């Protein structure tokens, strides 16, 4: 009978419900439940973040080579570090990285903030232009690197052509020139990531209550004063956050530059991360490159910490 079936089904379900389990969960303290929820995350973090980090630190004190797995791992103390810090080359790569990071950040902050201020004026079509400006950000860095090699082509590239419209300098070999190669990667990074800075600045600008400007108008502050005393302090936390994210990203910049210049010509655009990849996966000096990775990690970590402190100070205001 149908009604019978229903009762039996309901009975079955009731019996099948792991009441014992439900009771056990209910018996747990809040703290135990909290642990239950976060343990998987912690285990995962340990497995894929903390353990590799510790393992890298360990390897940095050995002469291990990953392409010779059979060989016993030999402890060599701080020899890798001594070699690294003593070599001229590493300082060169660090300098290249530093100038790449600093220039890209300075230029992108200036342009990004400028664009944000323009877009924030809410002229007709502002939404459309925002979308247009955001497009580069949505592309893959490797793809961007590849197609810019064509744009930069001295003979057929549009970049050289446009520059020549303004100044007749002849075919311009951005990537191949020792002087210009660094600028070639700075320009591409700026083209690609300024929208990101702009977006965060825009969020900051939109968060400024209009009454502050009204009060400033009443107080007879000029446009410059309004920018300096209201706009900038209010946008600063957003701007600094954008620079933090982008700065760390650019510190480990790899894909786009490999596609564009592969670190050349010579080692003019050889960023630390590019050199690291060469040492680790072309020369297979795993111990040595681990030491390099640790140095880079400490540098970024230290800088980021100082920076976050500054950021917090700005945010308090």
């Amino acid at each position, binding site marked *: 009978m149908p009604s019978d079936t229903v009762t039996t089904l309901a009975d079955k379900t009731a019996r099948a419900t792991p009441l014992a389990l439900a009771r056990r969960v209910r018996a747990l303290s809040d703290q135990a439940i909290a642990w239950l929820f976060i343990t998987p995350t912690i285990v995962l973090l340990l497995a894929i973040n903390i353990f590799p980090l510790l393992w890298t630190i360990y390897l940095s004190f050995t002469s291990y080579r990953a392409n010779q797995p059979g060989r016993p791992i030999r402890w060599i103390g701080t020899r890798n570090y001594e070699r690294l810090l003593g070599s001229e080359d590493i300082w060169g790569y660090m300098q290249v990285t530093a100038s790449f990071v600093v220039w890209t950040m300075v230029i992108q902050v200036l342009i990004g903030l400028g664009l944000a201020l323009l877009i924030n004026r809410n002229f007709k079509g502002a939404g459309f232009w925002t979308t247009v400006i955001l497009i580069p950000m949505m592309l893959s860095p490797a793809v961007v690197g590849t197609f810019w090699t064509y744009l930069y082509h001295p003979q057929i590239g549009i970049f050289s052509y446009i520059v020549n419209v303004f100044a007749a300098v002849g075919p311009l070999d951005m990537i191949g020139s020792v002087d210009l190669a660094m600028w070639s990667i700075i320009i591409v990074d700026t083209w690609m990531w300024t929208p990101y800075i702009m977006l965060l600045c825009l969020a900051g600008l939109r968060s400024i209550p209009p009454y*502050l400007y009204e*009060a400033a108008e*009443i107080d007879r502050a*000029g446009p410059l*004063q309004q920018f300096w*005393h209201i706009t900038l302090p209010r946008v600063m936390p957003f701007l600094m956050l954008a620079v933090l994210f982008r700065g760390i990203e650019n510190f480990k910049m790899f894909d786009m530059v490999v596609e564009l210049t592969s670190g050349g010509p010579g080692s003019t655009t050889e960023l630390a991360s590019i050199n690291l990849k060469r040492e680790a996966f072309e020369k297979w000096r795993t111990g040595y490159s681990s030491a390099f990775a640790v140095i880079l990690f400490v540098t970024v970590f230290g800088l980021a910490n100082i920076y976050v402190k500054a950021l917090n100070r700005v945010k308090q*205001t």
Partner: protein
Amino acid sequence: MAEVDLAGVSKRFGDITAVADVSVRIGDAEFVVLLGPTGAGKTTTLRLVAGLEQPDAGSITIAGTDVTRLPPAARDVALVFQQYSLYPHYTVYENLAFPLKAPGRRLSKPEIDRRVRHIAEMLRIEAKLGNRATQLSGGEMQRVSIGRALVREPTIYLMDEPLSSLDAKLREDLRTELKRIQRDLGATILYVTHDQLEAMTMADRIGVLAAGRLVQTGPPRTVYEAPASIYAAQRLGSPQINLLPAGSLATDRPEPPGTATLGIRPEDVRLTGPMGGAGQERPDLPGRVLTVEHLGVETVVLVETAAGPVRALADAHGPVAEDQPVRVAARPGSVLFFAADGRRLAATPASAPAALEEMSDVA
């Protein structure tokens, strides 16, 4: 300080007319209070004078210059915002000093410091000078907001309910203080509020706003004693004026033709024992005491009558008790007459004795 003149100023927001054809002249060193309930257009009026809004019609003149199309900076007004708009990332000191650092204001650092400290002391926020604007209580923010206006010497001070979030004691102190400052500096002030007490105590002249329209202007006493309409009469006085249907109360003066409503201020209500008023042509309004509120200075008696509830100010030591039957009468010459549309009607002078008046009424 300067004279400010609004001539036929109107402002619409879509379908809403926030300010409708307002004309008012604020004389040099005059303290004008615009009184109106919420939504009456008080803030909008101030914003129009400040230049934060553009009027749809009319013109605004400050010190003889038409400023209708000029930006706020050119008008040199100081405005205390209704929502205290302090610069949140600055300290109280910096907030107070900010208006003194505007371009073109060549003030020395010590001079700025002197003024800021003076104002802070006056508003009793000197202990908070180092606080960030966000680390203040509502009342402190409001005082900083007032201070930011007072440090300046503008053409006119515009104040938008500046005392609304202060406690009663501080409010009373600041009312006195503001009035004193205004006298000392000879400041021109346009002040808006919904608080009739502020209007009565500080104003040289009151303007009563109703739905964007200025229904009456005049000295507090005039507006109080001779309100232009029921609306204006209700704005001033606490407890509010009593409104009774025409004919419900014996009046010493004849009701002018067209009278629909009688208005009697609580202090003009006479309460007598059940026997009082006997022998009169039109007997006093009988009633029964509902509640007696002892407020210290005054005692408010609520009387239920056939014509409606009547509030009366009574002698604190009087024998009125709840549930007691009383008779309600009006002090001679105190009743206000209103037409059906709310307009006040002028009473015919009560020079003739009551008996004669009754006769002329008949005639």
